[in-house]
């Protein structure tokens, strides 16, 4: 057990996160203008940020090694939650992914699944670092994450399932998985594509088909098209805060979550959107730095998994706003509206800070 050291706490990282989250609230405020149903969202997001920051500090103060001992109970808890969602959860947007706990705010177990996976896989691989080349270790690692992955995929929440896969891949990769396994995995992935396709739900297939041939479904293409028009018409400096015609006239749908990047690019232009991306880049860079300087493999793999999640979600959400990636209902880290996303991100950062504060 190492000594906790607040001087090792990454204050620059925290500053970047606070700046980005406040920026997000400001943009959500612009995105929900003229929509009385969403009028309270900026305030609620500010509340989530405040709660999230508290959670961050509490988590940071916590020794992550202690968490390691809680890995198995936490993992079982998350599995139970996921199973519960499958039976009790309300169907929202075609996927059963929310549980409204105690009527307070809905909890998305798939967010917690990201933490559980990093803890479980990180913990196991860190303990078996020397035998990473051993097929049994690799298979055991896969078996550990299989239930959690299966439950998420069956919800069906394709977006989160892919995030979990990428997270696991990153952890395996940094744990030193030999090249032959990596190549085998890539080969298997290619071979299993038709199988995966047959397992996808109708709306998921549609999204992928629309990405390949945008004109196939004009109605679904509408959203992507409007996002592209929003981004493209922004120019160097944008149309001005609250002045984006695409967003303010509601041509852009789900402006405060999925397509918030389009609002930013339209209203603040290339300068504003690039600045936001650079802040995100800085955050991720600082997280890689924490991973690299971790005193042990567990900390390193834990932070690697969580950072991969943030990086991947950024790629997918920003990419989909610019027509690079198929549409998936993922939030843009720290910027999109959403209490669950905000709280789980703060939990990630808290864990990362906990690692940062306890390096050797």
């Amino acid at each position, binding site marked *: 057990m190492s000594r906790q050291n607040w001087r090792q706490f990454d204050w620059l990282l925290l500053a970047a996160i606070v700046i980005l989250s406040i920026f997000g609230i400001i943009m959500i405020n612009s995105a929900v203008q003229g929509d009385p149903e969403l009028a309270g969202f900026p305030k609620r997001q500010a509340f989530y940020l405040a709660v999230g920051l508290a959670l961050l500090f509490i988590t940071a103060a916590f020794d992550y090694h202690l968490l390691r001992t809680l890995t198995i109970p936490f993992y079982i808890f998350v599995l139970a939650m996921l199973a519960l969602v499958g039976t009790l959860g309300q169907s929202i*947007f075609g996927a059963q992914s929310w549980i409204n706990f105690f009527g307070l705010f809905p909890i998305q177990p798939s967010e917690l699944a990201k933490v559980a996976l990093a803890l479980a896989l990180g913990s196991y691989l860190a303990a078996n670092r020397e035998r990473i080349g051993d097929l049994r270790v690799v298979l055991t690692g896969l078996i550990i994450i299989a239930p959690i992955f299966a439950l998420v995929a069956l919800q069906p929440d394709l977006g989160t399932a892919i995030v979990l896969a990428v997270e696991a891949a990153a952890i395996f990769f*940094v744990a030193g998985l030999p090249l032959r396994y990596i190549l085998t995995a890539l080969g298997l992935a290619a071979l299993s594509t038709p199988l995966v396709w047959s397992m996808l739900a109708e709306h998921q297939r549609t999204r992928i088909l629309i990405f390949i041939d945008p004109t196939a479904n004009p109605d679904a293409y509408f959203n992507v098209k409007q996002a592209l028009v929003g981004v*493209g*018409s922004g*120019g160097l400096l944008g149309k001005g805060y609250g002045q984006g015609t*695409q967003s303010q*006239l509601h041509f852009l749908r789900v402006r405060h979550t999925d397509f918030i990047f389009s609002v930013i690019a339209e209203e603040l232009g290339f300068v504003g959107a690039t600045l936001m*991306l650079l802040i995100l880049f800085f955050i991720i860079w600082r997280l*890689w730095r924490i991973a690299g300087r971790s005193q042990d493999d567990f900390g390193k793999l834990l932070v690697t998994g969580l950072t991969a999640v943030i*990086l991947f979600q950024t790629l997918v959400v920003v990419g989909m706003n610019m027509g690079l990636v198929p549409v998936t209902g993922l939030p843009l880290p720290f910027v999109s509206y959403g209490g669950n996303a905000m709280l789980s991100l703060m939990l990630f950062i808290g864990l990362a800070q906990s690692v940062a504060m306890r390096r050797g």
Partner: protein
Amino acid sequence: MARQHAAPTYRLWILRVITVIIFATLIGQLARLQFMQGLGFQKEAVVNRIRVVREKAPRGVIYDQDGRILARNTAAYAITIIPAELPDDPDYEISQKKRLALYQDIYDIIHEKLAANATPVAEPTPTPDPKEIHLILDVSQPPEPTLLTVEEMDKLVSERELGSSFQPVIVAENLPREVALQVQEEAYRLPGVQLQLMNRREYPSGLYTSHIIGYMGPIPREQEKEYAQKGYAPDAWVGWSDLEYQYEEELHGKPGVRVIEVDVKGQEKKVVDEPTEPVPGHNLILSLDLELQKIMFDALVAGINPKRSNSAAAVAVDPRTGYVLGMVSLPTYDNNIFADGVTTEEYKTISEAPGFPLLDHAISGIYPPGSTFKLVTAAAGLEEKVVTRRTILNAPGVIYLPNRNFPDDPDLAQPFVCWIHKQGGEHGDINITAAIAESCDIFFYKVGGGFPPTDFEGLGVRTLADYARRFGFGELSGIDLPGENQGLVPDPTWKRKAKGERWVTGDTYNMAIGQGDVLATPLQVTMMTAAVANDGILYQPQVVAAITDSENHLIKFNHPIIRREIPVKSKNLDIVREGMWMVVNWEYGTAKNVALPDVEVAGKTGTAEFFDPEIGRDLAGNLPSHAWFTAFAPYDNPEIAITVFVYNGGEGSFVAAPIAREILRGYFDIKARDAAAGNKSLLDRLEEIAP
């Protein structure tokens, strides 16, 4: 816990490199979209939010000379659905279920209101005389309300939704006003449902004036560009025929234009540009008198035998101005049936009905003018000094033109008979006025073509044709209605080209009495009579006398237009007029039945033989004939010139003349009544203020 064996750190560096690549890609794509493709997207953003909304301008009203409305605008109510505002759900089945329920609601409500408002069964309309039925296509019922079924709504909405989901889809049309308003009251619980007011054209005088007023329809496909350039909305209606077509530019007005910014639901957020108000179209004031028009119509319908005649026409003009006072063509149709649009099928049925109801026979139909043409031959003969008032020509029942090649062989000579010959008579020695009055054919054969056996020299075809053209035959009268036919004045050049034959004296004979190849419209005959009546001025007939703005301030007065002064001396026209007076007022005149007690009428009958393969000849070998009568009155100071034409009517004096009498009597009755009441027509008042 002991420090564990560190994992290879180079792999973290690989992830850092991937991070840099990802962010570089995202920023690169951002730059590509915003800078390289930025202009295109900026345009698309503008197209998204900017709408040009046209507000239809009220179309001009058409009045008769007394200010009676012949064409006006009324409101028709329609219930529409805007697909974009219908309930929606990402789950297709749920959204479809919601929509079908909504359609059912819409259907039930409109259906119920329609049933509740159903007008009590109308009194049975008197069954028209079956003999007349094919002359009048009377369908002036108010248009039936239409309501789509739930299935039809679903089909139509899903078809339209993909293209333009903000364009309203009509689900019920022609609703009575009360029903429309009741449905609107329920609209709060029917998302996407709107009440639309559609401008409809209404023609209160319907079939009486359909050939004058015409009708409207959607912009024809081939003229879409042309109308778009003139600022017409794509869904605008335009005049398709008659005055609605001819005066389209005056009547249409200018739609108001508002450029607005809309949100994704098509709802107006703000007005972008200073809006322009719609400018109503101009009104037309016709010289036509609806009262006279109805008298003409009724007289014509009553005076013809529909079993024989599939068409007929009557024209009345003011010989002092050329203004058209009335113009009727049978068969007719009710132009109100076009107000709600007709299908191609319906249009075909109407346009191809016997007698071609859509055709205005008064200006588009060309027929041999028969003996009415003798007025031209008479005027030409006098002016060219072929005959004088005192010239007496012998007119047996039949004369023989010697064969050109064997002038001495009487067996080869060609007989030319007079109509009276068939009744076993002859006109004997006769002068020009009596020849007009008795409609002597032989006299006019000789005036036209001469009589070789006696060395009497006639006008010859070229001179006769020249005079015919001076009187307006063979050319368009220039009336302000579309579809006029110019008819035909034959001459040797024409015959050589058209038939490849040489012109012979017999042709000149036929032409001199309005037979052979001469073809004229009833309007041309009327303008000729008017020119005889007004001492030689050929006017251009006009239907529209004045154009006013929407508040009836005079914009333009259509002053009489003189086409030409016919080079026939007044004293010669006096003789022709005298002959026409005798037709009606002399003991042996052919139309004594036209005489009116208070007004002296002068006229000319015509019985024009024609060949129609469907009719052929009668048992005695005679060709069928059109009945003509043309007249002017009063004799001293003519103020009306009329022509009555009845297709296959038979004798002009028996069939056409009595109709003409009814019309003239009606005209002078109206005049006497207005004079007694001191009424001044709108036209008179406009004429006074016209510059």
